[in-house]
């Protein structure tokens, strides 16, 4: 047994933050479970003085690229990046090759995650076969295989009839439709946010309207069908307002926002660097402020990374040719604390942990309060440490982080998955 797999761990002197509040407490872990006290001396003692101990983070939105694009990321390297970012569970997006649209691919992804052993990898599945927007995937079979979130992420489901059927058919299966909101007829060829920057650069724009129309459509489909919906990576002022109003109406709707949509704006594209190309695109400061407000008042439930690795060669291409997407797993906490400074730390952690855990259907295992009897899925971080990301030091197989030179606040020190240290002193243990 290696030290990282020892049975008894003491996390001493930290500040525990969970859904029940904030307190000073030692945390004892034995055989993967939080206990009142250890039998005998701990095998490992973590000095958490000055550090925060919270339930492990849960990412609703990771592109782990396996199967299909292993040159950019594998489930193992993505899991390692996740663990270093404080995550104990990630939802793997289904836009793989082959698509996660059937039980065999979903099982493969889950198993690769178990083999890597760095993070619980929970596959989502596509709403339509091959994400082609034409035929529903077998929701019930996939639900039996453990899938809770369904999404064609990368694309929105364009056909309103098909989407209505998806919501209707999903009812009663305890699954959630997660929409990438983009009316594609309005975004053909789009490279960046439609606004003054794209006008100046002569680039085809991605209007906010294209997101908001689909947010509106799906809110009304939820109202019609009663089935729940989750909105992925909301990026515009009006999207946030639409979701706020829908929640006020009591509709079963949840939403997420990415670290980059609360920190970066479209002006960065004037560098011509495709590191800043992402879908939905970076928008204006007004949008950034609105998305932050949405997280603050609970309109947006979760911070989700949309971690999207790409090999350097593809991101060195001109803006219109490069694929969209940015890394996020290893920097999410640092971005969140740095850019949500006026939020209580516990509220930020809620957006990173127990709220996304509930949306992902993982609330019985992840995001649990740090109390005896609960599974030991924990993150220990320094909420005040300022740092800068060095691409070469990332565990991800890719290097396409947009946060180089951006001051980050908050660094993960230790991550515990089922009572095992996956990250110790800022380094992955496997």
């Amino acid at each position: 047994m290696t030290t990282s797999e020892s049975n008894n761990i003491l996390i001493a002197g930290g500040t525990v933050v969970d859904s029940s509040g904030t307190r000073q407490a030692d945390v004892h872990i034995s055989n993967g479970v939080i206990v009142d006290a250890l039998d005998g001396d701990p095998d490992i003692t973590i000095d958490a003085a000055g550090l925060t101990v919270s339930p492990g983070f849960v990412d609703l939105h990771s592109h782990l690229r396996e199967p299909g694009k292993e040159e950019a990321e594998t489930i193992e390297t993505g899991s390692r990046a996740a663990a270093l970012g404080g995550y104990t569970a990630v939802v793997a997006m289904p836009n793989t090759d082959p698509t996660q649209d059937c039980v065999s691919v979903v099982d493969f992804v889950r198993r690769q995650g178990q083999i890597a052993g760095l993070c619980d990898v929970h596959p989502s599945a596509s709403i339509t076969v091959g994400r082609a927007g034409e035929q529903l995937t077998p929701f019930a079979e996939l639900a039996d295989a453990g899938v809770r979130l369904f999404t064609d992420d990368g694309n929105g489901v364009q056909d309103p009839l098909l989407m209505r059927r998806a919501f209707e058919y999903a009812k009663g299966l305890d699954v959630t439709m997660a929409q990438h909101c983009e009316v594609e007829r309005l975004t053909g060829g789009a490279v960046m946010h439609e606004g003054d920057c794209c006008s100046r650069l002569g680039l085809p724009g991605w209007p906010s309207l294209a997101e908001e129309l689909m947010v509106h459509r799906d809110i009304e489909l939820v109202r019609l069908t009663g089935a729940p919906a989750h909105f992925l990576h909301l990026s515009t002022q009006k999207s946030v307002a639409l979701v706020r109003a829908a929640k006020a109406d009591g509709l079963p709707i949840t939403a997420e926002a990415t670290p980059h949509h609360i920190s970066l704006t479209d002006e960065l594209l004037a560098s011509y660097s495709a590191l800043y190309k992402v879908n939905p695109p970076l928008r204006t400061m007004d949008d950034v402020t609105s998305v932050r407000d949405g997280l603050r008042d609970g309109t947006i439930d979760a911070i989700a990374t949309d971690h999207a690795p790409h090999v350097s060669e593809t991101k060195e291409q001109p803006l219109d040719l490069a694929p969209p997407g940015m890394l996020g797993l290893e920097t999410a906490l640092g971005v969140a604390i740095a850019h949500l400074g006026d939020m209580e730390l516990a509220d930020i952690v809620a957006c990173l942990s127990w709220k996304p855990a509930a949306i992902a259907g993982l609330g019985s295992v992840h995001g649990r309060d740090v109390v005896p009897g609960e599974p030991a899925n924990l993150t220990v971080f320094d909420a005040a440490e300022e740092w800068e990301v060095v691409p070469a030091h990332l565990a991800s197989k890719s290097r396409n982080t947009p946060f180089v030179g951006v001051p980050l606040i908050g660094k993960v020190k230790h991550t515990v998955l089922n009572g095992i240290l996956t990250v110790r002193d800022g380094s992955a243990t496997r």
Partner: protein
Amino acid sequence: MKRSLLSISELGSDGVQRILDLADTMAEVSRRPNPKVPALRGKTVCSVFFEDSTRTRLSFETAAKRLSADTMTFAVSQSSLSKGESLRDTIETIAAMGVDAFVIRHSSTGAPWLVDGWTKASVVNAGDGWHAHPTQALLDMYTVRTALNRPEGFDGLRVAIVGDIKHSRVARSTTAAFKAMGAHVTWVAPTTLMPPVVDEAVTDRLDDVIGTDGEGVDILYMLRMQNERMTEALVPNLREYTNRFGLTPARAARLAPHTLVMHPGPVNRGVEIAVDLSELPGAVINQQVTNGISVRMAVLYDLLSANPDPTSDIEITEAVAAARTEQP
């Protein structure tokens, strides 16, 4: 320290004036019986065109040859790009052969900036996407300067740029250059052919800018209207476009006598210009082409010559001295 010409805004108004002054010298060279000087002997200029443009490429290559530079051409159809070679690999491979300047045309906004970051050679942007075409803007400025004899600048000059501004790198660069020279620019187009956010003065009424009593604009700059815009629902059809935004015989008849008519070429005859050019005394479209060579000579000389003073590289004849004192 290498320098590049990527955009008018990076060149600045002083830079524009410097190039236009140099272009006078180069125009004199071009008028000689043997229009060739040794100023850039030993320098190699490589045209890398990822988008078809025989006219611009020939203009640059003629300019380079008149300065005795060696020229190479990388044409995309013969390239390995279709085999998946990256832009960066292409540039680094050519650079390794020893190139002093790249002349880049690419369909992607920003490509010349990326290239500039990958090579020690100077880079000239010969058009990127819908974004910028600085040498077109410079040759336009030189054409106005010589045609109107305004070497000191364009203060008070009123310019209308008409047509598909949204998709036009020429409109963006030429607008920036006119403003740098002190002119006032109005964009004339339907909203569908404007960028989503516009900082310029705009109208969709061409007749207003042409006027009726010789009080119209000083420069009417017509843009090419591409047939493919019809399929994108940007205008209903070409007949209606010409009726609203074309230079028709009726509008030509109302033009003030001093109004210059410009076009970046090639003209889509019968669409944006629906009148015989020989009946347009103010048309300077051929002069734009001719001046393109002098201006591109000036740009290449400015970037590649070690001498800030062209008289040390180019023997100034009495003819140019005279041309400088008495502008046409």
